[in-house]
């Protein structure tokens, strides 16, 4: 893999936009080494929407940040590869990855309240970003582009001179989306884009994302613990648990017939208004301590289907029908 692509559009049309192979990311704390991402392999095709779900702490955010090599210290990418549009993210230089960020990949963070620089106004955020990647653009033009973007996001363009704290949470998230898309990237990674927003605003943001995806032909990675969101937007779903990828498949199929016991429990725990007499269910136990994970399958302490093999041997990702799942129930070897 070369660091810089030969052609702007990538070498072949059917290469996945993002290809992650056996990625391992560890956090080195004073007390222990925590494996946040454990040998995850995943690829995202152009134009699709991949949903990445899991509980808090399962490693999905770290995985997202790894795609643009922004894992915060004391975390480090230990091994594996990340190929983004032909670029070797793990091994290329700081300067090369910096040029990729924002231009080829847009990133939306969870908390819009803290993601914007309080001392810069919205216009300056855009101008700074545009001029970082396209230094020849003059300020007036950059501002014009920003105003156009704001309009597309449903924000009054005159507000370009306002400061972040003058906007509500929903508006700030729109600004974040605008910043992420300002340079027409191919890929948009959204980490919990609606988690900190109330339900009505959430619906608006979802609409906005759908619209933008259509009009800009985006590839979208949606990281969330909100299963409903995934059901609505994603083409495929990847489920993570304790830093591992445990199920991967088409959205429809996953919801109709979840394979992994964890996925089943996850879907069961979401209350369904239409079903009468439903008893609220939950998954007993707690996610494992990633510094000292249990032997064998990380889910076995909470799994109602666990048997002998689960406690000794780690399940590998195997194909089952058209999905992939890491569970001994389906691994008949």
């Amino acid at each position, binding site marked *: 893999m070369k660091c810089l692509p030969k052609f702007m559009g990538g070498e072949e049309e059917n290469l996945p936009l993002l290809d992650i192979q056996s990625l391992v990311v560890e956090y080195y704390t004073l007390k222990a080494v925590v494996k946040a991402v454990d040998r995850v392999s995943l690829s995202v095709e152009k134009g699709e929407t991949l949903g990445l779900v899991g509980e808090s702490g399962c490693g999905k955010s770290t995985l997202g940040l790894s795609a643009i090599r922004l894992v915060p210290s004391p975390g480090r990418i230990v091994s594996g590869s990340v190929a983004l549009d032909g670029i070797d993210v793990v091994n290329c230089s*700081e300067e090369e990855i910096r040029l990729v*960020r924002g231009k080829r990949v847009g*990133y939306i963070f969870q908390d819009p309240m803290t*993601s914007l*620089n309080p001392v810069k106004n919205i216009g300056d955020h855009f101008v*700074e970003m545009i001029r*970082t990647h396209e230094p020849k653009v003059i300020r007036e033009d950059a501002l014009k582009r920003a105003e156009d973007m704001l309009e597309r996001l449903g924000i009054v363009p005159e507000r370009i001179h306002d*400061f972040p704290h003058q906007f509500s949470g929903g508006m700030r998230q729109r600004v974040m989306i605008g910043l992420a898309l300002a340079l027409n990237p191919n890929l948009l990674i959204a980490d919990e884009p609606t988690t900190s927003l109330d339900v009505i605003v959430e619906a608006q943001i979802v609409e906005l994302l759908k619209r933008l995806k259509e009009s800009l032909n985006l590839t979208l990675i949606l990281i969330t613990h909100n299963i409903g969101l995934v059901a609505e937007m994603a083409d495929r779903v990847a489920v993570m648990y304790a830093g591992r990828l445990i199920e991967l498949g088409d959205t429809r199929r996953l919801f109709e017939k979840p394979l992994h016991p964890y996925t089943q429990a996850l879907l069961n725990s979401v209350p369904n208004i239409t079903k009468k007499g439903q008893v609220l269910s939950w998954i007993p136990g707690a996610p494992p301590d990633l510094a000292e994970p249990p032997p064998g399958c990380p889910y076995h302490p909470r799994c109602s289907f666990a048997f002998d093999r689960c406690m000794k041997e780690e399940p590998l990702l195997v194909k089952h029908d058209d999905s992939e799942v890491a569970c001994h129930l389906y691994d008949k070897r």
Partner: protein
Amino acid sequence: MALRSYIVSRILLTIPMILLLLTLVFFIIRVLPGDPVLVHFEKQATPALIEEFRRQLGLDKPLEQQYFDYLVGLLHGDLGKSMADFSSVGQQIFSAFPATLELSIFSIAVAVLLGVFLGARASRSYNSIEDHSIRIFGIVSYAIPVFFLGMVFQLIFGIGLHLFPTGGRISPGMEPRGLTAGDFQLSTGLYTVDSLLEGNLQKLVEALRYLMLPSLTLGIVLSGIFVRLTRSNMLETLRLDFVTAARARGLSERAVLYGYALRNAFLPILTMMGLQFAALLAGAILTETTFSWPGLGRYLVDRIAFRDYTAIQGTIVFFGLLVALVSLIVDILYAYLDPRIRF
């Protein structure tokens, strides 16, 4: 504009504080045990002389009258009369103040530059030996009495190495006269500025030579808190979401460090500068005494030695007003720089 109303409300808030302070100082001098006049004379004068003395200073009037006169006098800029020679305390303060101002400016410059530089370095090499040594420096510089450090510098650089003078503000005859054009004269009282106005580089060098040790001493002692503040602020800011978000947009490390991290971490540093002004004045008193620097601090210490209580009172009132003014300015500046407070 919201800024204007903030300024007004802030000023209004300062007034009761100043009033309280003035009253406090007044009562300390008058009401505490020990008649100031008697102590001043230390039992050496006849009752008649003492009465006359009192009358001259207005100390024979009833307490409420004195308080009223005191406040009224302050509004006119009258800070009382010295017990030594009945001269105006205000005049003496006015002539001694520029020296203290010059020392303060250079000292705080040293403190902030040294402190911010070290603090930023420590934050970037977190948990390294450099980081720990800088932190230790921060604490040690706080624990050293400023006059001890001054004396050590005098010993090493003045007496030992003969690099810098150990006392005074400038060699006699070298005082800069500022800008003179015929009858017109403009001088600030700050020797560095005045020598530039005069166009005399030699005087400038001399003034700086004398400034070096005292401002270094006071600056180092004050820097400790800036080291700690900068370090912890930078550490915090560098982990904030908007810094990561900025990096995710592909901004360069330099842009992130200066435009995002430092700009946000700077505001508390500015506030701290204002807060440290009080400590600066206190330190200046000791530094000026150590280096025989002819400023307000040394004036106060001299007046204490002479038990000149009215002068002491006047000087302390002046200090209080100065601190109140500076904190007002800093607050307004802060509001101007942080849009969150304004709107």
